[in-house]
């Protein structure tokens, strides 16, 4: 609702005698009750419609987001407030619901404003909270570990904070758990896999003082550690290998970022550096790290409306996701909430939001080449191979029968057709279709080669296409696709006439040409709309046309022949055939190498360019820009400001330095809390992505600050934090539930015991494979498939039987956004739609069905049984003992042995393995 003053209305209302209004209006006695009665319901403490609040002086006089201000002291006739309460337009008049103001009330308000809108101090009924007055926005303190009554229990200074709090509540810590349990706990926790029998035996034998430390060092040095802890980070940043939304197509080059995160954890990259690399890794030789910026779902160009408003909205959505990710992952702040309105709880204004957004104004979603010495040499090598392929193509044309030579040529095919002819001068080439196998003809690319083997048809060398007529389907069929150098139906030209049409290429200069290559769909998906009868004509610079090739000497088209015939061999003698075959093979090999080299060197890590101008948008609407904004940090948290002239790199680097600074009150706190959460299930701050005022306060605020300080002092070493936590007395406690304490602190927020929890979905799968002996420990690279489709529209049928690559750790699976994996996804795996700051631990019947009945479980039960038979021999008792040993890290007790023997004797060993895989003991971190 936009307000335009209408003088005629005002003239009527305000032509009252001045004397009537002369008596001074008392705000508290006369005005405030009117506001209270009519306005506060929508413009008070609970709601602030249109961002207007009338119960606090400062905000009331500032106004809402529709008009600022709504009250203009001294000028009632210009004040939108008066206009709105007097309007006779029903849709506009305030209050929107309920009775209108009486004439007397209007008179009072008018007089009050005309008299200067006097609003005395200290009369507001509510006080505006200072939103900066919040623990997380205050500097990190440096508390000393508290003294405790019990001086024996603590093993680390950290423990004293926990113990002091327990003592304060009159609670006792739990006894230290046994070695077996601790090893299992720490191994699952740090690597996501169970300890092997050998690891267990070694540890149980090691009676030295630093036996525990040795284990932790071993686990942290294992590459399995990074594979486990990277998953926590990928959850937060909603990593996936598809683009999301309706088409959910593969994001083929996302995985280098996943590998980067695994490596960063394994290498113990200092956290501050980890932040810098993810925001500006392109400036530090860490290209893959900037995958962070563009991990979210995004609409592809074809899914965005062709109208400009749709494009602007899509751009805002893209940028919004970067701001959200940066805010939540690093700062634990929901900055995204301020996109449409000032934040409801935190001191983040919409202006702050757009200023933060301006740091990313030069970032676009897309693949970028990885710059590294290896990638550079790969690129050079690929280029060299491409030249070789072009040469081979040129040589191969020698083996294609000349058109119009009298020899019969192979029939046309949908994939690719070569027309070779004696060299001829050409300024224009015209391809005229006379008949097709059906419908309007369609060509994906028309290539014209000169005698040097160069494709002169490309638009990039200045060639222009013209056609008899075209059916345009955006991003699929467009005339410009005929010579854009890209293949496939989605980059093709289509005539607008059934069965016929022509397309002509006009070169910038005259060329001597000897070959025309065309196809319907070089990607071999489509065979319809194929020209059967055609003629190819060439005109030189003088405009003289001649036919160089046509379909008359081609064999009859056979619809069943989908792939092109081995074109090089048709009509050749044995010697030529041999030569051509050799060339063809060499070409295939080179092409495979080119593909590999170019695949390896891209990352979906954002494309960086000139920053666009950024504006404060009213209500987040791109169609309502207010002022232009420059990059700046959230004002309540820092004074970083850059000029609008700052380059993209300067912006991201400055932001990275600000976030990764020890002075930033949130960064270290947020990360130590995530590490804590990883070990104890819940962070000291339960809302690990929200340290703002709507988040939950820390259970142990001093401990959080102490940890944050330690973290920064250690050089931001994540592994040192792990060491401290895993070796602590707190972590070594038994998980046993003591009913009396449980009654006081059921959620174990005070850590009176170790809070046991279920393994995460990925860990369950990895552990089943580790136990069956089939786990493939290959690291890195493009993901393996858990669905038969890597992306797209028509659903995701799951792969059911896995082998080879499919037996790798689940973090290496090609992660489909939104589509949870068919068996383990139900165990609370995030869908990568929104950030997942902490996984829930739900228990559902679908989990039970998946784990009990899936082919995966049956296959791995069989494999586990096979392994046991091999390792334990034929005797049932030792087989059963071995099953328990491997799966649980302990032997069966007498009752279990008896029960299991019964099961195995009539149902076989795989039945026992299947049951064990489904058992609680197998699935829980003890």
């Amino acid at each position: 609702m936009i307000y335009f003053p209408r003088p005629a209305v005002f003239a009527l209302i305000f032509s009252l005698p001045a004397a009537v209004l002369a008596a001074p209006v008392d705000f508290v006695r006369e005005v405030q009750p009117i506001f209270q009665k009519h306005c506060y319901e929508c413009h008070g403490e609970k709601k602030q419609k249109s961002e207007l609040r009338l119960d606090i002086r400062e905000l009331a006089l500032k106004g809402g987001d529709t008009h600022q201000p709504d009250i203009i002291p001294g000028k009632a006739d210009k004040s939108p407030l008066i206009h709105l309460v007097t309007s006779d337009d029903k849709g506009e008049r305030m209050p929107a619901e309920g009775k209108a103001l009486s004439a007397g009330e209007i008179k009072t308000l008018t007089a009050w404003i005309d008299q200067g809108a006097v609003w005395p101090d200290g009369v507001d009924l509510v006080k505006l909270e200072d939103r900066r007055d919040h623990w997380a926005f205050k500097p990190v303190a440096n508390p000393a570990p508290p003294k405790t009554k019990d001086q024996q229990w603590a093993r680390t200074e950290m423990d004293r904070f926990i113990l002091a709090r327990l003592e304060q509540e009159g609670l006792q810590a739990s006894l230290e758990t046994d070695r077996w349990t601790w090893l299992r706990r720490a191994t699952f926790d740090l690597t996501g896999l169970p300890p092997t029998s050998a690891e267990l035996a070694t540890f149980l034998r090691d009676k030295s003082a630093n036996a525990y430390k040795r284990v932790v060092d071993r686990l942290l040095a294992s590459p399995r550690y990074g594979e486990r802890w990277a998953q926590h980070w990928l959850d937060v940043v909603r990593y996936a290998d598809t683009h999301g939304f309706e088409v959910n197509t593969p994001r083929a080059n996302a995985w280098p970022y996943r590998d980067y995160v695994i490596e960063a954890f394994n290498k113990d990259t200092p956290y501050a550096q980890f932040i810098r690399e993810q925001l500006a890794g392109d400036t530090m030789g860490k290209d893959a790290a900037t995958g962070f910026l563009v991990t979210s779902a995004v609409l592809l160009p074809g899914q965005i409306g062709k109208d400009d408003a749709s494009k602007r909205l899509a751009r805002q959505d893209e940028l919004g996701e970067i701001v959200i990710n940066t805010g939540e992952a690093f700062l634990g702040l929901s900055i995204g909430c301020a996109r449409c309105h000032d934040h409801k709880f935190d001191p983040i204004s919409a202006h702050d939001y757009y200023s933060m957004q301006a740091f990313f104004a030069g970032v676009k979603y897309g693949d970028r080449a990885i710059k590294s010495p290896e990638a550079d040499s790969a690129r050079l090598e690929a280029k060299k191979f491409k030249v070789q392929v072009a040469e081979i193509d040129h040589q191969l044309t020698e083996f294609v029968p000349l058109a119009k030579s009298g020899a019969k040529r192979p029939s046309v095919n949908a994939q690719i057709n070569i027309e070779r002819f004696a060299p001829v001068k050409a300024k224009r080439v015209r391809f005229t279709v006379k008949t097709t196998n059906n419908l309007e003809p369609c060509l994906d690319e028309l290539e014209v080669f000169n005698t040097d083997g160069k494709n002169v048809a490309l638009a990039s060398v200045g060639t222009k296409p013209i056609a008899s007529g075209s059916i345009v389907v955006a991003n699929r069929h467009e005339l410009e696709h005929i010579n854009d150098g890209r293949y496939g139906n989605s980059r093709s030209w289509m005539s607008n006439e059934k069965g016929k049409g022509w397309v002509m290429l006009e070169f910038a200069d005259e060329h001597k040409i000897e070959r025309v290559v065309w196809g319907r769909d070089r990607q071999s998906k489509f065979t319809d709309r194929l020209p059967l009868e055609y003629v190819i004509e060439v005109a030189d610079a003088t405009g003289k046309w001649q036919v160089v090739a046509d379909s008359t000497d081609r064999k009859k088209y056979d619809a069943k022949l989908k792939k092109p015939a081995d074109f090089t061999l048709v009509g050749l003698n044995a010697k030529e055939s041999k030569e051509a075959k050799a060339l063809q093979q060499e070409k295939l090999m080179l092409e495979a190498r080119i593909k590999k080299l170019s695949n390896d060197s891209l990352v979906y890590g954002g494309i960086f360019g000139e920053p666009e101008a950024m504006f404060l948008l009213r209500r987040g609407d791109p169609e309502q820009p207010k002022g232009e904004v420059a990059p700046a940090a959230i004002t309540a948290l820092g004074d970083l400001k850059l000029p609008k002239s700052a380059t993209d790199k300067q912006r991201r680097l400055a932001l990275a330095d600000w976030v990764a600074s020890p002075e930033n009150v949130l960064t270290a706190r947020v990360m130590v809390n995530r590490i804590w959460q990883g070990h104890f299930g819940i962070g000291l701050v339960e809302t690990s992505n929200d340290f703002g005022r709507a988040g939950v306060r820390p259970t142990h605020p001093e401990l959080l600050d102490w940890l944050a300080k330690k973290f920064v002092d250690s050089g931001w070493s994540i592994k040192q934090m792990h060491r401290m936590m895993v070796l602590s007395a707190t972590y070594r406690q038994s998980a046993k539930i003591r009913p009396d304490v449980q009654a006081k602190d059921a959620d174990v927020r005070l850590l009176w015991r170790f809070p046991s929890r279920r393994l995460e979905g990925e860990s369950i799968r990895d552990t089943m494979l580790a136990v069956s002996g089939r786990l493939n420990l290959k690291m890195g690279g493009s993901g393996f498939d858990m669905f038969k489709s890597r992306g797209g529209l028509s659903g995701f049928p799951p792969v059911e039987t896995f082998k080879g690559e499919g037996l790798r750790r689940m973090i290496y699976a090609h992660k489909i956004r939104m589509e949870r994996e068919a068996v383990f996804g139900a165990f609370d795996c995030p869908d990568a739609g929104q950030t997942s700051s902490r996984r829930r631990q739900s228990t559902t019947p679908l989990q039970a069905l998946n784990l009990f009945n899936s082919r995966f479980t049956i296959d791995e039960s069989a494999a586990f049984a096979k392994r046991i038979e091999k390792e334990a021999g034929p005797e049932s008792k030792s087989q059963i003992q071995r099953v328990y040993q491997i799966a649980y890290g302990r032997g069966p007790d007498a009752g279990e042995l008896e029960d299991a023997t019964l099961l195995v004797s009539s149902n076989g060993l795989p039945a026992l393995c299947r049951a064990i895989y489904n058992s609680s003991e197998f699935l829980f971190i003890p």
Partner: protein
Amino acid sequence: MSHQAEYLSSVGRQFLDRRSFLSQSGTALGSIALAKMLGQDGLLAQERPIIDPAQPYAPRLGHQTAKAKNVVVIFCAGAVSQLETWDYKPELIKQDGKPLKGGPAVTFQGPAGNLARPQYEFKPRGQTGKMVSEMVPHLAELTDDIAFIHSLTSKSNTHGPAENFLSTGFVQDGFPSMGAWVSYALGSDNQDVPAFVSIPDPRGVPQASVNNWGPGFLPAEFQGTPFSAKNPIRHLDRPGGISPSTDQATRAFLQRTNERHLTQNPGDNKLAARIASYELAARMQLSVPEISDLSTEPDHILKSYGADDESNPNKAAFARNCILSRRLIEKGVRFVQLFNGAYASGGKLNWDGHSKLKEQYDIHAEIMDQPAAALIRDLKQRGLLEETLVVWCTEFGRMPFFQKGAKGRDHNPNGFTCWMTGAGVKPGVSHGVTDDLGQKAVENVLSLYDFNATILHLLGLDHERLTFYHNGLERRLTNVEGELIHQVLA
């Protein structure tokens, strides 16, 4: 719990208090049962549903008396044209073939063409005389029972985000679906079947696919379980190669193993809930195939739905899904989401009529109309419509003009029609108006927030109070928006 209160924010406190109350029991599920009892007696203000981990689908009370116990949402994917169906525009007939003065030059897919008349004839129907097109002759007969809302608007003109918006209240991926919210809040009357069932179209999944029935950040047990008359629940059946006796023996052994483990770890209700989840799974293995087995349906029922139409397998399959919907409602399933229309396919498999609208709608309408109408009649005839809400919806509408060089209409989020009928709905009303050409909502302009708020209301839920504390925010299906559409309430 004094020690907790001090570190909780005001929004977090209530959440944690309730959760702690539930989980403080030393004996597994004892206090849960107590909480449930209290809840049923109305002693606890039901701000947040109390979930018994062993019985997640136990029935729960809403915020107010429910008009409707259950709901069937007929979700037409691909954006059904309001102009060919429910929103009669005589002026558009007059202006057929003329350019729209002042209209947009470019819309979602490209250049705009000339105005095009509705592609079907309209006729007055029933007592109300409501004009409905010949495209849907069977549904048209039900108009006296239907409340139409003609003035809906969406926040996106792209199918995926718009379907997200319709189903989750957000255009982004990853938010909880309405069905998940409802089953989270209310549970279900049947403990042996999931509280929320999603039935995909026989031709494939809708454009936003699993987002339409996803749990988002709600507990996973409340996501929609997809199955249809044709495709059963995944992993429901005993795996191939395992004999019934081995299956049974393994299950029994597992139960003993888990019980032994619980005895050694007393008081851990997560372990107790796992045992319960296997029991529930076993009950589902018995009850779901029985519900999905349509062989007991008499011929006249199959015929009335069109499930016997051998000449049109897609129609027959959709009709079977409609019968399945009724059977689920009969069994007390809370939320049934029934899809008509599949993924993006140039309008071939769903309602996305960009280029050959009439030709394609002839096919889609044939599949949708008779079975959907039969479902509503069947529910009514069995008295189930008195406690069941039936919603017909689509993600947005279509433009009054054709696309340039085509015979179809482009996306239009600015004014489109959805409707509801059944429990709590005022029959025979049409609310909201689009302009004379049906391009934009002009009177009583409503958003899908309002539509969703109204559905929740009919189910006894206050959309402003049905919240879930996630990531520092009290999340809602309707975000911070939504007003009830009183005009369609009985």
